[in-house]
């Protein structure tokens, strides 16, 4: 059983989705507790990958392949876990604002969120303001994370907050902003709840903001 979970962890680190599915199933068959498989196998592997990326020991492709592998494992294990038993950190809606097609930073953030146990809805790029809100409502998200990479599209981040304020829903969601030209001053100016320079830092901020809200 221990071996199966170790193999599973390594398969997540290797970004091998097929092996992750196989070892997840084997661990279940061998009688391992689904929560142990999730926490000691999949999550531990994902944590290692996140650390390796932050230390620049691996790069974006490896990070994203591990994210895919982790999702493959969750598909096998989650049906065996009762709703409410899964220690998910939170739900995040991510996307790049309308008029902006840059997505690499957003994709890194997404992969690291998954690696750190968040549920993520990725809306992609060039996302209309209302779509962020609609998806957050639909998934009962904790955080709306809005990316922009151009000075002329930064206003799209403010639009999300304005939209929430006007509709009386501002307190329902934590709003984080990020991307090349964003900074703390801008985040303060548009009344965002969180900002980070880098994707790993953004994951830490997301974690802290959710913990603060739950306290």
């Amino acid at each position, binding site marked *: 059983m221990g071996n199966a979970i170790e193999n599973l962890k390594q398969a997540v680190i290797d970004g091998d989705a097929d092996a992750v599915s196989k070892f997840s199933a084997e661990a279940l068959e061998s009688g391992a507790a689904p929560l142990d498989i999730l926490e000691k196998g999949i999550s531990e592997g994902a944590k290692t990958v996140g650390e390796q990326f*932050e230390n*620049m020991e691996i*790069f*974006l*492709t490896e990070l*994203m*392949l591990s994210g895919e592998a982790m999702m493959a494992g969750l598909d096998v294990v989650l049906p065996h876990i009762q709703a409410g038993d899964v220690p998910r950190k939170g739900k995040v809606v991510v996307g790049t604002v309308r*008029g*902006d*097609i840059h997505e*690499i930073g957003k994709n*890194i953030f997404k992969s690291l969120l998954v690696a750190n146990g968040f549920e993520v809805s990725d809306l992609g790029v060039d996302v209309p303001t209302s779509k962020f809100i609609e998806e957050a409502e639909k998934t009962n998200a904790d955080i709306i994370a809005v990316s922009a990479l*151009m*000075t*002329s*599209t*930064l*206003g799209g981040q403010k639009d999300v907050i304005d939209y929430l304020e006007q509709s009386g829903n501002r307190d329902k969601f934590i709003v984080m902003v990020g991307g*090349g*030209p964003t*900074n703390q001053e801008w985040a303060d100016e548009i009344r965002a709840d969180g900002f980070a320079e*880098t994707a790993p830092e953004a994951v830490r901020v997301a974690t802290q903001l959710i913990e603060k809200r739950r306290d």
Partner: protein
Amino acid sequence: MIPIIEIAKRALDGKPLIEKEYDMRVFSPRVRELVKEYGISYDPEVLVPSDDGLADAVFKAAFDLICDVGVYCKDTERIIAFEEKEVRNELKTSYDHAVLGEGMEQRALLPRKPDSKEKPWIFAGAGGVTVSDESIFMRLVENYAKRIPIANAITTPCLLSVDGATIRARSPLEIEGSIRTVVLGREALRRAGRPGLPIMNAIGTAESAIALASGLHPDFGLRKTDGYMIAELAELKTDLDLLNRAALLQSLNVPIAGIYGPIYGGFAGGAEGTAVTSAAFHIQGILTYGASWTLCFPIHIKYTSSSSPELIWLASLYAQAVSRNTKVPALYYNYTAAGPCTEMVLQEFASEFIAAISSGASIETGGVAKGKYFDYLSPIEPMFAAEVAYASAGVKRADANEIVKQIVPKFIDKVPDPPRGKRFQDSCDPVTGEPSKECFEIYDKVKKEVTDLGIEFLY
């Protein structure tokens, strides 16, 4: 040159593929294979390699890469493919210069070679960083032209707003901002007594093709001898909006640059793969846009700057690879971690530009403080950057390596948390744009440091 209609046909009819599949299962693994196949390896002890064989290996890998994976069109989700023979022929028949500027300022932008004494093309200015106010825009451009006599071309700042309204992409504000950028830039150069200088980032404020087209009307002052840039997207991608620009600019018969920011740590992997990708981007610009010059600005995925040792190495090797194997002039542009009026920003410029110039590139003075903050600009940084680049012509790669290795330790520990420096309003006279005494003292100090290491400044 491959006609843009032919490129458009391939973008519309090429092999369909989901973008994520292209990134992770086509582009990324092929880069990794080619790095291995050609034995390309980063050596942290050598920041400016002198190995011609290594430079040529990077070029061969880049050539193979673009033949094998093509260029991805994001809008149509298809591959724009190229035959090996076609790529070879296009490189043989490409442009080998671009004529820029008017009257007394007219010059030819020519390709350079590694270790060459040929003076580089000096493209100096704001590096596209944004300013909050039109008067700051004017003071900066005037001072760039006045204080950098060796500048061959100017890059203007971008405008944040028009009449107090923040510019938004795809809105009339973007159109008006694009037109103003041109009008103000031309007027600032006239006031500086250099009306013939080309504006090479025409039109900095224009993000969309329609804004570019709007600013191009002759009433606003742009000329056929200004520089026109079209972005290539990370990694080896384009889209229909960018191809639309190529269609417009090729019809106007103006010099086009392919510009690209390969990401160290991204889908290209580490320093080796990013060097190969940078060289492949150079070829992409020639093939897809008919580029007569290109501009490379590698970015660190974590720090979003370019002065880390791995990036200096890959930029040097990229410049050597394309300058040894193509005729199209290659420029290097950087993102410093530190901001204006700091020693670190000048040390970053010195190390990156000594490496790039000795490796065969010309330069555009880069975006300071990562190009991230409004108004974090002064004339001092492009002035110093231009002078150090000009002075580095003729420095052999081996000597450049020794010099750069002595400069990098002065700032490397500060890259993760760099000093932001000072805004224009806090470091320059608002009426004249004259930098403060403090800025000049820092400039003198770092210039002496670099002189003591063996770089002989013209003045």
